[in-house]
């Protein structure tokens, strides 16, 4: 079986995989990082979104072997070791941007990439367009959009994060 070496949440790992093993399967089944969800079999729902070298990607739509040498960031890599949440996670909590929580890890990962890539500002329309690849079946997106707008303010230093 081929071996793949990559960095996941800052830690170097080397794992044996089949060529057909998906990145999401490597994360969930080999590394036990089950925060990254699988919500569909058709590459549409975005629940499996992680960052690959700083870009949001659907980890169900790439092979683990394609991630050779890459840096992967998952939902587990966001909070600080002391448990302080990432501002995006904090704002999702603050604005009640989740109900069942299934899509949430993917939403948060997409949202962080979106905010990082738009230091100049984000309109509501841009946020909604930016979430094109993430489906939520319960909250109706409204509070997710609010949470992302609020997180933008914190992540770009316009507003301080609430003390934990």
């Amino acid at each position, binding site marked *: 079986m081929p071996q793949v070496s990559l960095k996941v949440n800052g830690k170097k790992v080397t794992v044996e995989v089949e060529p057909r093993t*998906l990145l999401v399967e490597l994360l969930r089944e080999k590394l036990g990082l089950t925060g990254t969800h699988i919500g569909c*079999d058709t*590459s549409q729902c975005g629940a499996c979104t992680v960052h690959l070298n700083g870009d949001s990607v*659907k980890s169900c739509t790439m092979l683990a072997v394609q991630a050779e040498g890459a840096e992967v960031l998952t939902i587990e890599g966001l909070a600080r070791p002391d448990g302080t949440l990432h501002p995006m996670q904090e704002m999702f909590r603050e604005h009640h941007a989740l109900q069942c929580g299934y899509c949430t890890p993917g939403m948060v990962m997409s949202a962080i*990439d979106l905010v990082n890539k738009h230091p100049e500002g984000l309109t509501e329309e841009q946020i909604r367009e930016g979430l094109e*690849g993430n489906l939520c079946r319960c909250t109706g997106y409204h509070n997710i959009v609010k949470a992302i707008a609020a997180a933008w303010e914190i992540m770009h230093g316009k507003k301080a994060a609430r003390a934990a």
Partner: protein
Amino acid sequence: MYNFAYHKPASLADAVKILSADPEARPLAGGQTLIPVLKQRLNKPSQLVDLAALGLAGIKVSPTALTIGAMTPHAAVARSAEVRKAIPGLADLASWIGDEQVRHRGTIGGSLANNDPSACYPAAVLALGATIKTDRREIAADDFFQGMFTTALEPGEIITEVAFPLPVEKSAYEKFRQPASRYAMVGVFVAKGPKGVRVAVTGAGQNGVFRVPEMEDALAKSWSPDSIAAIKVSPDGLVSDIHGSAAYRSHLITVMAKRAVAKAG
């Protein structure tokens, strides 16, 4: 997913060698179509040849051409200041293919080689009269697209880059998205450049992307939405499915073409 052997060759020659020796081997570009297809077990390649290590990504501009490497992801084309300046319609098209995650992985070469009848890039490549360069030759856009999921590529032939002739005076893309899948039900790219005025339609034709000569003639005389308002593409040969009839798609072509012309300014 059925299993397969995986290769990541370091040279174009090696990639071509593996693909040419095995008709069941498939090239892997961004994988945003191929991997979902494999997950559904709709395809069973013996080997996948990953093109990621061949140095095929990148954007170059000269006074006569904008050249985009085959492995350049859509997001890179969308964000490129050079593309925005040289052919704004092309950058705009790339900025709303699929979704953000797909745009980070999906590539121009993969899109063209697949030639999905609803893909966006074929419309730009045909309307801008681009040249598709491969490991062995150059193919004009007019000769490249040969019907649904069919191209002029030979078995084992790999797209290396796509050259868009410059200067482009006007360019714009408009599409009407299927509300659920967000694929183009009808997409129209309009362009005025070194190859003249050209209008290409994706999403609508039973044989994939096609040009609309009547609109091209009218726009060459007068570049305005009004000049094409009365031009209809016949529903014969257009796609008819649960999302829209051929007559509806015919109507949408004129509407999208007018919007694209207005957008191009």
